[in-house]
């Protein structure tokens, strides 16, 4: 008798389990949709400054850093000099990985653009963020772990830059001279309209999207600003001074690890996730409690 009674009680309670599990699963999956930024690419950062001294200045292509932003502090961004000795390595890497679309002299083809004269910064951005080499040129390039080491990437940059003069050099951002506060204002004015105010990124029209900035390095941020990859507008030195670029890089770095007071951050995408949590977790758990203490139809 008592065994049957116990089992029936258990059966009755078991009716609650699917509801509880369902609520938790749905809530959990929603949280899982917006994972915090992983540190997939962060290892690229440190190579830059360490290896910078190993590369001698190759020379003939100098980006006009003095032209814009009269009041800017040019020390906030210094240009990386590329070693001429790495050009043969860069050439072989380029022929192996890039030339099938861009051509052996980076002159471009029907599938890919001419890279001559775009500068080292352009090549460095696309290769170091893993967007190049690209599998399908018809869709937006996806950020992924780079196929090349930092020195290999710089070799490719040096090779392409050696083919033709012009274009921005690889910027090296001195974050200690940059201001987070100034960066915040610049970011909300110039960047938030696509990348969102938290840098989480979002979908734009026709399958194009503004990527998340959660793994961007200061150099990549400065390169993107100066070269305008993909749909992004190019911000030249007359629009944003070197100092302002450095400020932006610093603020984006802050956004990657912001002051997240208040508990679990729900992906920094605003009220969408908050609404789901409020309804499913908040109201859902209160309703479960009400179901538990309230009467049921017999």
């Amino acid at each position, binding site marked *: 008798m008592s065994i049957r009674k116990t089992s*029936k*009680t258990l059966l*009755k309670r078991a009716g609650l389990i699917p509801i509880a599990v369902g609520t938790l699963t749905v809530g959990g999956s929603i949280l899982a*949709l*917006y994972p915090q930024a992983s540190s997939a690419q962060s290892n690229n950062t440190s190579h830059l400054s360490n290896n910078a001294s190993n590369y001698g200045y190759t020379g003939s292509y100098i980006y006009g850093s003095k032209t814009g932003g009269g009041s800017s502090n040019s020390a906030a961004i210094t240009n990386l000099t590329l070693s001429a000795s790495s050009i043969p390595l860069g050439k072989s890497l380029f022929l192996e990985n890039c030339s099938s679309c861009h051509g052996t002299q980076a002159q471009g083809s029907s599938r890919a653009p001419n890279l001559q004269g775009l500068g080292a910064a352009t090549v460095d951005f696309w290769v170091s963020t893993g967007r190049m080499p690209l599998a399908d040129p018809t869709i937006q390039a996806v950020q992924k772990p780079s196929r090349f080491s930092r020195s290999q990437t710089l070799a490719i940059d040096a090779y392409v830059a050696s083919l033709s003069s012009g274009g921005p050099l690889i910027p090296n951002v001195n974050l200690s001279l940059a201001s*987070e*506060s100034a*960066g*915040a*204002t610049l970011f*909300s*004015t110039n960047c*938030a*309209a696509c990348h*969102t*105010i*938290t840098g*989480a*990124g*979002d*979908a734009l*029209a026709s*399958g194009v*999207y*503004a990527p998340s900035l959660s793994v961007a390095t200061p150099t990549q941020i400065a390169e993107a600003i100066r070269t305008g990859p993909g749909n992004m507008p190019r911000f030249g030195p007359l629009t944003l001074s070197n100092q302002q670029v450095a400020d932006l890089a610093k*603020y984006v770095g802050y*956004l990657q690890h912001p*002051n*997240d*007071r*208040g*508990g*679990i951050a*729900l992906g*920094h*995408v*605003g*009220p*969408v996730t*908050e*609404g*789901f*949590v*409020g*309804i499913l*977790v*908040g*109201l859902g*758990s*209160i*309703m479960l*409690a*009400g179901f*538990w*203490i*309230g*009467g*049921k*139809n*017999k």
Partner: protein
Amino acid sequence: MITQTTDWFDERLGIAKFTRKSLNKIFPDHWSFMLGEIAMYSFVILLFTGVFLTFFFVPSSKLITYHGAYLPDRGHKVSEAFASTLNISFSVRAGLVMRQMHHWAANVFIAAIIVHVCRIFFTGAFRKPREINWFVGTGLLVLAIVNGFLGYSLPDDLISGTGLRIAYSIVLSVPVVGSYLGFFLFGGTFPGNAIIPRFYTLHILIIPGLIIGLLTAHLAIMWHQKHTQFKGKGKTNRNVVGVAMWPAYAFQAGGFFFVTAAVIAALGGLVQINPIWLYGQYVPYRVSYAVQPDWYMGWLDGALRLMPSWEIQAFGHMIPNVFFPAVLLPGITFTLLGAWPMIERKITKDYEEHHLLDNPRDVPWRTSLGVGILAFYVVLFFASSTDVLANSYSLSLNFVLWAFRVLLFVVPPLAAFVAYKVASETGAVSTTGRRKRILIISRSSEGEFSTTETALRAPMHEEVIEELPEEIRYHAIKDGHEELASAIAVGAPSGGSTISTNDVDLGPLQSGGTGVYQIPRTPRGGTGDPRGRISRRDKRE
């Protein structure tokens, strides 16, 4: 001492009778009747946390230079409203948890109202005589949504400022009076300096005052009319079966308040909501992509997103595009919602009083209509997050938008059809909703199998139906409730509490206490034999 005090008041105010009646008030016990309570308790939490926030919030759009604790904003020109919200979040002790609780409570508050409305709708609890409470409830829903939006706008951050900009454009889109209305509401053109102080007054004084007034009316009418109940053993259209206010219901409801408060406090302490410091001060020329309103405005935002860019001419003027999704749609929505009891009455020609609830499966047409309409708004709600969905699932934003435009017209009829089928099919099965009985399968010595149905176990919380005490039966007969007195009785385990009809004190129960009681219900506006006013549904059975 206590007796002396209460006697002192009783001799002057005569409160003892009222108190005793109140304590013996019968509440039908069903979990779905507690959904409205969630809303009420969330509102109480909103009041408490809101009062705390008013101590520190400065409702002013005056620009000052920020020198507070949040470093990335130092040196910026921000409004006093934004600066004080940062101050609440970073410097005021327990400020952030209070702010987050306030915001979470608002989200839960309106969500609870919606599920409460759904319960009322699908069980037909809005039918005569409860139409007035339906109107009041609709008003409360509108006020809650409006006040949520006002509160969301107060911190003057980039996201809410963008929402205000949209709201201003919506007001402007009203034909003929739009520009005057916008000027009146915003004190000039957008953004101006008047919005924050005005919205503050509306948010903390006028609309909460209206909500409290309507909520009191809502509860008083409910109290006066007595609660509805589901069909069940001993439950008729002429009585109320349930637990007494004191002690059973008071503890259940009081405990439920603490559950609600605990969940909201846990959310406020553990889950971040609206981190305005990451958004920054609102500046009209700045905008963030992916701006959504809080969830309860999502259906309007979704409607704005889905509306094609048609330019519609009427009376020689162009009617602004946003007028249709953002003014006409909510207008129609709340008008139809509020008028629903009248509309249903026109359809069913049912002029009877109903105190017994419909099970949703008993009225498939209403259930399917409700599900269909709800599905329409759910699609609109999800359409508010087109960009987030497109980004999360790596889809084209245009594809998601067009998918929602199609879904908006495909999902509601489909959901209504499925609901109709489910309701009518389950309603046709006599055992639906009954507790399943365990079948014992046995095998005879000849190898033949047979099944035996076991007896239904008494439920864990059986409502014990007992004979009415003689004295109460006398009063019931005297009041013309013979059918009650003879056929139905109440469970009354122990104690000495009383049970009362509407008007007549029935005196103490011989063994009253925490049991399940049923009391007669006097028909409203009825004349003659009360039994003549039994609903058609009851007659059919």
